[in-house]
């Protein structure tokens, strides 16, 4: 009955009063903007949590089963990495070392804070293909020197006031890592996250020098934080992952890049208040949109009660009225979504410039907010439709 060849009453009623339409579009657009802001920030923050994973090479990752997040210092023996190398299809497996608890960096420059602050130290064997970043890979020779390390330019300035603009200036700065002299020979770009205020990259040898207590007895490099596995045929990644999983014992998870990323995001989303905060933000946007949408649909119904009553008298059914209002809701959500999307894109660009957060208008984010907008409009439409269904044509005569 409500098909496209019939009188498009939902559309006509919606667009008839352009002033009301503008208010409706502005309101729903605002709700869309609110939701996009939340989704955008959440994604940006989650992305920063997995930036390290994104910057690493490798197709399959080995992590300790106890390591619930990258920041958790749970390690596993180096032999497992070597064992993984023996699996068929694997062309290389390399260890990566990180340290946060013992890793405290203090600088002695002008106006530097008097205390040492925690920084994540990343140790790797310089000959292994660990980082994607050309910036790191081009400075590997400098890292062969003792006491040498690279500093993340995005490390928190207040804690680590290094002159990152110039390598010469940097090299002159007196600094200590874990109470031992360190020389910053260059910079790289990784970024901070909730757990880490800055990063240092250094050779595994230097890493072992600074943090000998990593392992109580024996070689500090015999326990690794992360194993990076390269496969020959990326199409067979899943299959190789299964092989390695069977090969290694229960101490480690063997994860593809996607799984590893999701596991990390999942931790921040589900096990910390971050997910809740952003979910609350989205719900608020949703409710704001619902209230506005309800108002628009309700007043449309209230203003046309005699007309709807006439339709009732003519023999239009409850089903028609339900479809009419759902149709109106869906139309409203689309009309409100487009300007909301455009405003959000502009806002993302502005915020990305000012905060350095990675705000991206991804297809997933667009789809998610669109679905929420439609749901929001339909929900409010169904709340308002009760008024319409109560229409009584008995009062028309």
């Amino acid at each position, binding site marked *: *009955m409500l098909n496209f*060849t*019939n*009188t498009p*009453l939902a559309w*006509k*009623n919606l*667009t*008839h009063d352009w002033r009301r339409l503008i208010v409706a579009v502005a309101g729903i657009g605002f709700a869309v903007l609110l939701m996009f802001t939340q989704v955008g920030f959440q994604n940006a923050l989650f992305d920063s949590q997995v930036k390290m994973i994104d910057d690493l090479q490798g197709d399959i990752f080995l992590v300790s089963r106890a390591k619930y997040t990258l920041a958790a210092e749970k390690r596993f023996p180096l032999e497992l990495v070597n064992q993984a190398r023996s699996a068929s299809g694997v062309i290389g497996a390399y260890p990566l070392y990180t340290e946060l608890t013992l890793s405290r960096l203090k600088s002695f420059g002008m106006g530097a804070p008097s205390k040492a602050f925690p920084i994540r130290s990343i140790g790797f064997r310089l000959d292994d293909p660990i980082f994607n970043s050309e910036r790191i890979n081009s400075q590997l020779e400098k890292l062969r020197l003792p006491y040498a390390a690279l500093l993340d330019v995005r490390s928190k300035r207040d804690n680590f006031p290094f002159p990152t603009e110039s390598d010469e200036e940097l090299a002159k700065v007196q600094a200590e890592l874990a109470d031992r002299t360190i020389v910053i020979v260059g910079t790289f770009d990784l970024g901070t996250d909730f757990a880490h205020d800055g990063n240092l990259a250094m050779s595994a040898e230097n890493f072992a020098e600074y943090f000998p207590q990593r392992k109580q007895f024996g070689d500090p490099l015999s326990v690794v934080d992360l194993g990076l596995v390269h496969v020959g045929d990326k199409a067979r990644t899943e299959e190789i992952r299964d092989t390695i999983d069977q090969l290694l014992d229960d101490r480690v998870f063997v994860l593809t890049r996607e799984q590893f990323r999701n596991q990390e995001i999942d931790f921040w989303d589900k096990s910390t208040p971050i997910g809740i905060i952003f979910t609350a933000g989205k719900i608020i946007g949703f409710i704001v949109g619902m209230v506005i949408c309800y108002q628009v649909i309700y007043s449309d119904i209230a203003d*046309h009660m*005699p*007309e709807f*009553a*006439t*339709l009732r*008298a*003519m*023999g*239009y*059914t409850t089903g028609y009225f339900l479809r009419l209002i759902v149709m109106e809701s869906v139309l409203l959500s689309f009309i409100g979504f487009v300007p909301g999307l455009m405003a959000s894109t502009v806002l993302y660009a502005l915020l990305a410039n000012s905060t350095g957060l990675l705000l991206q208008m991804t297809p997933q984010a667009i789809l998610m907010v669109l679905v929420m907008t439609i749901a929001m409009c339909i929900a409010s439409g169904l709340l308002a439709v009760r008024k319409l269904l109560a229409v*009584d*044509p*008995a009062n*028309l*005569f």
Partner: protein
Amino acid sequence: MTAFASLPATSGAYSQGPAVPKTIKVSQLNHYFGEGELRKQALHQNNLEVKRGEIVIMTGPSGSGKPTLLTLIGTLRTVQEGSLKVLGNELNGASRDEIVALRREMGFIFQAHNLFESLTAFQNVNMAAELADLERGLAKERIDYLLNRLGLGHRIHYKPKSLSGGQKQRVAIARGLVHSPKLVLADEPTAALDEHSGREVVTLFQELARDEGCTIIMVTHDNRILDVADRIVNMVDGYIRSDVAVHETSVICEFLRQFPLFSDLSTSTLTDVADKMMVQEAVAGDVIIRQGDPGELFYLIRSGQVDVIIDEDGAAKKVAELGEGQYFGEAALLRDEPRNATIVAGSKCVFYTLGKADFKDVLARSKTFVDELRNVLASRT
């Protein structure tokens, strides 16, 4: 012989014979508003029959229950007590689906136009056409025809905002008629219209009634359109005070006027007389009155033929034959004497009878016809 004696002569039940299907049959209908102590009866034992193709005008002061009866007939209110049959369906206890199906066979014209401001005249009318599943081309043709017919040909694609009150009302009328309804319920359809367009509307009603067998019930106070009524129903305080078939009543009055004693009576008095007459039927051979019996009724022959037989000295002798429009039985009433002749039905007959008391009452009280009659009927309160 006295079958249907409770039927008033002016109801018109016998003017076309009883075989014409009834669009509406209201019997013993009561309706109440409010609950408990505030419960107030709005309709009292309403009885009404409307034949297919009849145009009925309902009159009466405000608060007389006209809209209540109209909404009940229109299925817009639930029947509480009594029986109400519309287009062959009993509404008392009807299901939702039945009601929806029934509503689609009706056309509603409300006093307020109730047009969607967002739709053009054409689209507003089309809302009704779509519901009837009319084929698109046919629907368009019919909408164009109706709007043109109602003088809106140049405004078909205008929105209500650019139409005058009268034009909007005419769009609403087209919406009520587009799906060829079997029953049209209209509330003051011509109130917002000038004389010319009002006339056009009722002419259209008449055509629909005649050509499509559409039954039309109008509530109106517009005296200019009374002439289209086949039946005028007058309501007072929830009672149907009179329900009169206009044509039949004028026939009765013309007959009565031929009776010398009644020929000087005003139309209004004649109508009152007609109103008091009841229907009586007889088949060939029935004895209507018998010589020597006391006289109680005055008879007017609506149809059929009777023989007048006078019994003289034990020998029955047929002295005359009486046919349609003639009367008998007045002599006994005038002189308070027993019947001076026997009347036997010579064929299937319908009589309209008047009681002795009423007959005398008319005599004790002692003006072209049809138009005046309608005014009289409509202005009764």
